[in-house]
């Protein structure tokens, strides 16, 4: 089971600044392990971000995205208490969904 994501959504005016940190090896399929064997490709292919259930971002990724991927986006028309949900699916079919609530800027 994949590790939970860290999601922070902070309201700046009418826009939510959303930052997501996912925990994933993002193997390129080019790296060799200690025994000299190639570590197989293992990476997140799709990411979906929704705002109160409505899709705001649908991303397609390659293995070139760094290990433990970071994603930052801005969502217009957000309010404090709105739900931001993030789902990723990797090339092995593993998936994970986490949710956060938009908070006021401190």
């Amino acid at each position, binding site marked *: 089971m994949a590790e939970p994501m860290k999601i922070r959504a902070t309201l700046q005016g009418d*826009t939510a600044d959303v930052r997501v940190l996912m925990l994933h090896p993002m193997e390129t399929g080019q790296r060799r392990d200690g025994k000299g064997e190639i570590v197989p490709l293992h990476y997140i292919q799709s990411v979906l971000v929704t705002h109160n259930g409505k899709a*705001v971002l649908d*991303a*397609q990724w*390659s293995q070139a*995205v*760094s290990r433990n991927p970071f994603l930052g*986006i801005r969502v217009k028309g957000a309010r404090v208490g709105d739900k931001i949900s993030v789902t990723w699916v990797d090339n092995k079919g593993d998936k994970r969904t986490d949710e956060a609530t938009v908070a006021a800027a401190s």
Partner: protein
Amino acid sequence: MNKVRRSLFKLTGSVIAIAAAGAAGMLRPLLGWAAPWNKAGFESKALADALKSLGAANAPESRDIAITAPDIAENGAVVPIAVTSRIPGTQQISIVAEKNPFPLAATFDVAGGGEGYVSTRIKMGQTSDVWAVVKADGRFFTAKKEVKITVGGCG
């Protein structure tokens, strides 16, 4: 007898309602509301092929696209890249590292309240131009910025 028939009707009705909801997409998996994963693009090994797969071959440069990336990245495994598009009607932003083994790194489709801004971190094998390809109202625009890499991050 009649009562049984009535309830049978009701049951059939709810089954149909569920089937209709399924057909309308309410029961389909959450992902996949936009285009399918761009296999050809992510497997292409040259910049031109990657741009072509996006539909952005020969797209003009635009000054309304800003790429925020370091001039020199010490560690190619973690290169922060942010793209801001001020082009009205921005629908899609792609990040392409020209000299990577597979140049196309990521494509972001924005919708609803999603703004023309994405920030992420990518791996880069060597010093190269990083391209931002933006689709706005069905037309494509590009911008590029060179990022010098001290230690490559693909191995």
